[in-house]
C-alpha cells in the first residue's frame, strides 16, 4: 500500500513538473506583452527599460528557472499590470469564486440527487419524464446561453434580480463574503443557477441510474420481503449505496466547476478568479495566467491523487491484502 502511495505521489509530482514547463512555455509563447503594456508613444529606451524590468530580456529557460526557484518558495511572481504578488491578487478574488461554486455544487447535488432518486424510483411517472427532459436540456444547452436567457428574463424583463456584479459583502474572519446579506444573495442567485444547471443534470442522471440499478438488486428485494417500509429502504439502503459514487463525483465536479466558472463569471461580471483569468488573457498579464493555470493543474493533480488513494482503499483486493 505504501509503495503504491509513493509511486502515485511521484507520478503526481512528475506530472506537475511537466505541466509547469508546458504552461510556462505555452503562455510565454503568446505574443509580446510589451506591445500591450507600454503606451504607444513610448521611446525606444523606455521600451527597453520596461522589457528589462519585467525580465523579458532573459532567455526563456532562464526565465523558467527563476520562476521555478520562486515557485518553490511559494512565490508565483508579480502581476505585470498591478505590480502586486499574483497570489495576493488571486487570493483576493478567490472568496467570490468559492462561494459561487460551493453554492452551485451543493444545491445542484441536493436537488439533483433528490430528483434523480425520484425519477429512478418511479421511472414511469410523468414527473420523472419531465425531470429527465429537463436533464437532457441541462446537458445540451451551452451554459453561456442559459446565462443570457436568465438575464433577459429575470433581470431585463421582470426586473426581479440584478443582471450582474457581486452584492454587498460582510467580513467573516477577514474575508469578504456576499451570501450573508440580502443584497449579496440577490446577486448570487442567477449566476449560481447558471453554474448549477449542468451539474444538476448530471446529478439527476447519476442518481437515477444508481437508484434503478439498486432497486433491482437482491438487497432491496430482501428488505422488502422483511417488511421494511419503503421509506426505511430508501433511507437505509438506497442512500447509503448511491452515496459513494455521488460523493466521488461531487469531489471531481467541484474542481471542474471552478473551471467552468470562467464562463458564468464573464456573463454575470462576477468578480472572481475566472473573470480575472479572462481579463488577464486580454491584457497578456503572463504571471497571472501562469499562476492560475499552475494552480488549476495542481488542484486537478491533487484531486486525482486523492481519488486514486480512495479507490485503492475501497478496492476489495487492496483491502484483503491489507487485513490478511
Amino acid at each position: 500500500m505504501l509503495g503504491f502511495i509513493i509511486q502515485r505521489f511521484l507520478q503526481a509530482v512528475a506530472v506537475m513538473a511537466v505541466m509547469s514547463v508546458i504552461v510556462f512555455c505555452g503562455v510565454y509563447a503568446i505574443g509580446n506583452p510589451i506591445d500591450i503594456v507600454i503606451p504607444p508613444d513610448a521611446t525606444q529606451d523606455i521600451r527597453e527599460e520596461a522589457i528589462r524590468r519585467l525580465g523579458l530580456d532573459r532567455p526563456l529557460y532562464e526565465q523558467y528557472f527563476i520562476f521555478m526557484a520562486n515557485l518553490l518558495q511559494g512565490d508565483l511572481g508579480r502581476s505585470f499590470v498591478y505590480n502586486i504578488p499574483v497570489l495576493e491578487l488571486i487570493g483576493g478574488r478567490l472568496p467570490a469564486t468559492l462561494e459561487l461554486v460551493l453554492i452551485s455544487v451543493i444545491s445542484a447535488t441536493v436537488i439533483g440527487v433528490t430528483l434523480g432518486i425520484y425519477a429512478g424510483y418511479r421511472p414511469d411517472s410523468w414527473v420523472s419524464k419531465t425531470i429527465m427532459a429537463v436533464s437532457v436540456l441541462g446537458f445540451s444547452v451551452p451554459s453561456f446561453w442559459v446565462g443570457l436567457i436568465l438575464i433577459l428574463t429575470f433581470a431585463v424583463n421582470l426586473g426581479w434580480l440584478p443582471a450582474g456584479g457581486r452584492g454587498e459583502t460582510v467580513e467573516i474572519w477577514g474575508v469578504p463574503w456576499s451570501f450573508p446579506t440580502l443584497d449579496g444573495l440577490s446577486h448570487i442567485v442567477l449566476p449560481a443557477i447558471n453554474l448549477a444547471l449542468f451539474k444538476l443534470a448530471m446529478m439527476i442522471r447519476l442518481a437515477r441510474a444508481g437508484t434503478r440499478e439498486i432497486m433491482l438488486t437482491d438487497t432491496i428485494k430482501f428488505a422488502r420481503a422483511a417488511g421494511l417500509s419503503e421509506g426505511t429502504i430508501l433511507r437505509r439502503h438506497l442512500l447509503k449505496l448511491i452515496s459513494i459514487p455521488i460523493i466521488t463525483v461531487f469531489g471531481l465536479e467541484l474542481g471542474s466547476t471552478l473551471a467552468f466558472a470562467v464562463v458564468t463569471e464573464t456573463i454575470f461580471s462576477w468578480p472572481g478568479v475566472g473573470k480575472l483569468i479572462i481579463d488577464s488573457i486580454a491584457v497578456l498579464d503572463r504571471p497571472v495566467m501562469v499562476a492560475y493555470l499552475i494552480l488549476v493543474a495542481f488542484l486537478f493533480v491533487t484531486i486525482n491523487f486523492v481519488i486514486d488513494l480512495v479507490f485503492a482503499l475501497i478496492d476489495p483486493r487492496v483491502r484483503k491484502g491489507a487485513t490478511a
Partner: protein
Amino acid sequence: MTFQKFLAPLTIAVGLSMAGAASAQTLTMGVRGGPESMDPHFSALGPHAEAAKHIFDTLVWSGDDLQIEPGLATSWTPVDDDTWEFKLRQGVKFHDGSDFDAEDVKFSIERIPVVTGPTTTAIYVRRVAGVDIIDPHTIHIHTDGQAATLPNDFIRLFIVSSEAAADYSTPETAAEGFNSGKAAIGTGPYKFVSWEPKGDLVLEKNPDYWRGEGAWETVIRKEIPNDSSRLAALKAGQVDVINYVSSVDYLALANDSNIDAIEGDSVYIMNLQLDQREKTPLVRAIDGSELAENPFRDLKVRQAIDHAIDRQTMVDIVLEGLGKPANQMMPPGFFGSSENIPMPEYNPEKAKALLAEAGYPNGFEVDLYCTADRLPGDGAICQGLGQMFTQVGIKTNVNAISKTVYFPAQARLEYSMFMNGWGTLTGEASYTLGGLAHSNNPDVKLGAFNRIEYKNDEVDQLLQAGATMMDPDERRATYEQAMEKVMADKAYISIVQLQTVWAAKAGMLEFTPRFDEDTLAFFIKPAS
C-alpha cells in the same frame, strides 16, 4: 419585450432606494476602469491617473477643455532655451500635515523612472535633464534641448510627499507602501482610506484642501467594468453616477425620466490611415492579381475614399447618435485645430468617378484592419467603412481584431489600410501631428507613430519649426497650417469624434463633463 416593460419594476426599485443614496454625505461613483496601484507614478493609463487625481495634485492642471492652468505650480516661464522656472504654491499641506515644497517636486520627478510600471509614467518627465531647487517655492527644470511643451507634460506629474514616500520608492516596496496607505499621502481634495485592486477605492474629505473643501464627506469609487452592469447599478441606486454609458444603452436612456444623461465630447477621433509606401502588402486587383502600384499613393484614390464615407450615417446609425462627424485629427477648439478645413462631402458617385479617373474603373480589393475592442464602436465603424467602400467599388475585407494583435502588427507596418482611434490627450497639436504626420525621424523625435510612411516636406518643416517656437500665437498658427496641409493630403482621413456619456439619477448632481473623460469627485456637486 418592450423597454416600457423593462422599466416598470425598475422605477419602483429606484424609488425605494432613493432614501439611502440621497444623503449628500457620500458620493458613490461607478466607473469602468480603476487604478492599478495607489502609487500615482506606477501607470500612465487614464483610469489610474483619474483615481490618483483624487488624492494627489499635479504640478500643472489640465482644465475641462484641456487648457493648462496653475496647479501646485502657480506660474511657469522659460528662463533660457533649456530651462523652465516653476513657482510653487505656498501654504499647501499634505494630508499628514507636513508642508509642500520644492523638495517634494524634485523627489517626485526623480522617483518616477525608478518606480514606474510597464505602462510607463516616465513619458511625463522624458524631457527633464535635471532639477535645481532655487528656494522652497521656486524650482528650475533643465531640459534636453528646447522643450516648448514641458508644462503640458506635467499635467500628470503627481506630487507625492518626500517624507511619507521616502521608504517606499523602489519597485519592490512602492506598491506595498502606497496600497497600504502609509505612503499614499498627497495634497489632493480627498484622503486615502482603503483600496482593493479591481474593487472599491474609499476616500474621505481633506478639509484643508487649497482649492476649498469638497462637497462630499466620503467618496467611494466602485470599479464596474461591464457597461450593462454599471448602468444596472445606477438604476438600482447602488451608485450615484456612472461613466461611459455605452451607445447601445444611450438611446433608451434618453427617454428615461429617472436618469440624467450628460454627454461630453471626447478627445478620441477615429482616423483611417492609408499606406503611402510604393509597395503595400494588402491591396490587389479584383481578380486577385497584383496591382502595378500602390493605389493609395494617388490623391484621386484617397479623395474617392474620403467621398465614399458617410460620416453622418456613422454617427446616427453605427454610434446611435453618440459622436460627431470629424474633418481633422483633433476636436475643434484644440490648440492647432483649424477652422478652415471643410467637412468632407459624402458623394458615392463622385467617389466612383474619381476612382475611374485614377485608372480603377472596376475598383480594387483591400484588407481593412482595425481594433474591435479598444474604443466604443471601433469594430462597428470598421464594418460600416467596409460596406461604404465596397459600395463604391473598393472591395473591402474587414478585419476587426483585438488590439493586442492589431497594434504590434501596425507597428511592423503590416497593413495597407487601417483604422484606430487617436486621442489628443494633451489638448494640443504637437502631440498629435508630431507623432502621426511628421515623417518618422528619431533624430528629431518626431513621427514615431507615422505607420504609413506619410511624408510631406512642408508639413515636416512646419512641425519642426513649431516644436521650438516659444510664442504661443505663432505656434498655434504654424500647427493650424500643418493640420490643413495634412488633412488635404488625405493619407489620414478623420471619420468621427467619439462622445462619452455620464449618467446620474435625475436632478441629483451637478456635473461638467471633461474632455479627458475624467470623473472627479471634487468637481461633482449635489444639485442645489
